[in-house]
């Protein structure tokens, strides 16, 4: 098992990388801006969000039914369906397909589900070299790093660093510009596409009615991965089901407008079965691994709507915490608000119990989430569950703020006491302050006490009429 995630340490180390923080912040800013514009320019976007949530409610209430239906239709179209209860089962399925083929190389199109089960490592152990083909993923794979942003995984590296990396790993000229670097990657990756024994992809949607897989990319690597290699393996979480083909246009609109602000991505690949005789593209064999990995049990619990997530990234692009610390601090496949909730649910509270704290409860994520997932509420619930699980009665230190803030009478009384203590702050030994103000003071300055009044008494006076300074109400 992994060592427990330590949010404070991880944030501190992420924040020390100023280049990364600035790059991720800038990217998130751009994406949240274009998402806003794309939502505003689509008439009925809010209604479409309601529709999307309702359709996914239907799916998460009948996960198994839709997964089985999908499998049946896929097989009727000539594909092979595999069910995997958990990560290890999925890995076994994939590695045995690879072994049967005698495969030595695979190309892969960015997929979070495969990262969730650590597929690359398992394939490598089985003697299959895996190449990530999304440019950003390819860069960080060469560098041996982790993604810092869900849409732009290598955004923390500048062109000089990428040029140096390509120079060392691919033998390109040093000091190339962006345009030339993209050409170098095209040439290097095209060779691997043509030579690969297996193409591995995820799926953005799986249409139960027709056994169809739909995936979106801007680079076209998803298209190449599913067009050239003789065998394609799709790893898809059963939460990716949508009931009917007629649901696909609406979901595509929600996904691409929320993710990158585009009316549609450059490529949407809609796959129904393997290549048929005489066709110009596609694999001879199409395997789809339907992964549960805790999803069925999520569907029957209080966090059910988490299964509706489209992995669009809008919540993180709009999250003040993510925009500040970037993806690395989460140390999880799933970062940002959706990751705060999903990581502890998938990998346990012991490993990721502190992630729900990476949230200010500002509510921006829920406002922009195309599926209207109640993310702030889920953060709160997870914190409650974590505290309850600690068992022993919580100490006064943990209880006091909750109690004080929880009841207006306590809050007012508490506020008075704190103000009085603070106004004598200069006489308090500084060592006592953290004990009084808790961990709040570790990374923040205490406000200067005793200047002006507290909000409540100011408000009460203000309600009485123009205040003494002549300010108008």
């Amino acid at each position, binding site marked *: 098992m992994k060592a427990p995630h330590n949010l404070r340490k991880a944030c501190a180390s992420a924040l020390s990388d100023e280049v990364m923080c600035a790059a991720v912040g800038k990217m998130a800013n*751009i994406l949240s801006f274009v998402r806003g514009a794309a939502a505003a320019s689509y008439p009925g976007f809010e209604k479409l969000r309601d529709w999307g949530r309702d359709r996914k409610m239907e799916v998460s209430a009948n996960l198994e039914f839709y997964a089985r239906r999908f499998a049946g239709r896929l097989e009727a179209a000539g594909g092979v369906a595999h069910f995997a209860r958990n990560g290890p089962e999925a890995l076994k399925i994939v590695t045995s397909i690879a072994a049967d083929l005698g495969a030595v190389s695979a190309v892969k199109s960015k997929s979070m589900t495969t990262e969730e089960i650590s597929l690359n490592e398992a394939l490598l152990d089985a003697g299959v070299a895996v190449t990530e083909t999304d440019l950003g993923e390819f860069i960080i794979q060469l560098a041996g790093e982790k993604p810092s942003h869900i849409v732009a995984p290598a955004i923390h590296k500048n062109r000089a660093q990428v040029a140096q990396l390509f120079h060392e790993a691919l033998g390109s000229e040093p000091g190339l510009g*962006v345009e030339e670097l993209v050409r170098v*990657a095209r040439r290097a990756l095209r060779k691997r596409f043509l030579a690969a024994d297996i193409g591995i992809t995820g799926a953005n949607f799986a249409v139960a009615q027709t056994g169809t897989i739909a995936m979106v990319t*801007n680079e076209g690597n998803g*298209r190449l991965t599913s067009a050239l290699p003789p065998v394609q393996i799709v790893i898809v979480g059963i939460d990716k089901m949508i009931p009917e083909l007629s649901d696909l246009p609406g979901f595509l609109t929600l996904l691409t407008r929320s993710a990158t602000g585009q009316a*549609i991505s*450059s*490529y949407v690949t809609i796959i129904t079965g393997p290549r048929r005789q005489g*066709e110009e593209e596609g694999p001879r064999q199409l395997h789809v691994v339907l992964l549960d990995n805790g999803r069925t049990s999520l569907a029957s619990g209080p966090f059910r709507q988490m299964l509706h997530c489209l992995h669009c990234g809008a919540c993180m692009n709009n999250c003040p915490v993510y925009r500040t610390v970037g993806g690395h601090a989460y140390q999880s496949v799933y970062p940002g608000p959706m990751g705060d909730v999903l990581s502890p649910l998938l990998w346990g509270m012991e490993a990721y119990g502190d992630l729900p704290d990476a949230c200010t409860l500002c509510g921006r994520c829920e406002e922009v989430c195309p599926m209207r997932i109640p993310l702030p509420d889920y953060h709160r619930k997870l914190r409650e569950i974590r505290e309850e699980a600690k068992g022993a009665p919580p100490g006064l230190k943990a209880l006091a703020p909750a109690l004080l803030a929880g009841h207006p009478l306590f809050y007012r009384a508490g506020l008075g006491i704190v103000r009085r203590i603070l106004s004598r702050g200069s006489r308090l030994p500084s060592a006592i302050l953290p004990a009084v103000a808790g961990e709040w003071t570790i990374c923040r300055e205490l406000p200067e006490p005793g200047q002006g009044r507290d909000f409540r008494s100011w408000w009460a006076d203000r309600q009485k009429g123009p205040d003494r300074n002549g300010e108008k109400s």
Partner: protein
Amino acid sequence: MNRPQIVERYIRMARIAGTVVECVCQPDLPLRLAEVLGQAGEPKIAAMSATGWPEGFRQSIEAIVVSSGFEVRMPCKDPGGYTWDIGGVEAASVGLVWCEHFLADTGSLVLATGQGRGGLSTLLPPISIVLSDATGCIEGLADYFQQIGQRLPSRLTLATGPSCTGDIEATMTRGVHGPQKVVHFILCD
């Protein structure tokens, strides 16, 4: 929306996505096509899908391509089997296909596989030349699905603009995997 309005909307959306769209009448097509082919780089090899063209149209397009100095390769070597001329398509500097339907709402080309055709010629070469009739323009994906019912091809690609990436310093760059340039000729009366 009536047909000209739908086509107009398609053109607007496709141009936003970076597609070069041109409405041409049939008599002008040879000249315009030859011009675009003239701008394509070396080697002078063109990949052309074997089927999917309107009756007799493929031959006339092939004649223009050949007279522009190009050698024509067919991605699908054997329409009844599984053999490809991958090397041939990979070497091509342009790919030409007929596209039956295109979507106004998103500016997308609908590329469907079928006997003797598929996506390789619009995927591997750096330049895609796509030809359509104006009557093939429909509003959105929902309308397309309604037209085909559940008879889905094995691969259906919605291609909207050239292949692009912003993965290095968020600088938009074209042609990272697929075509760098997509030219769409719409035949109008």
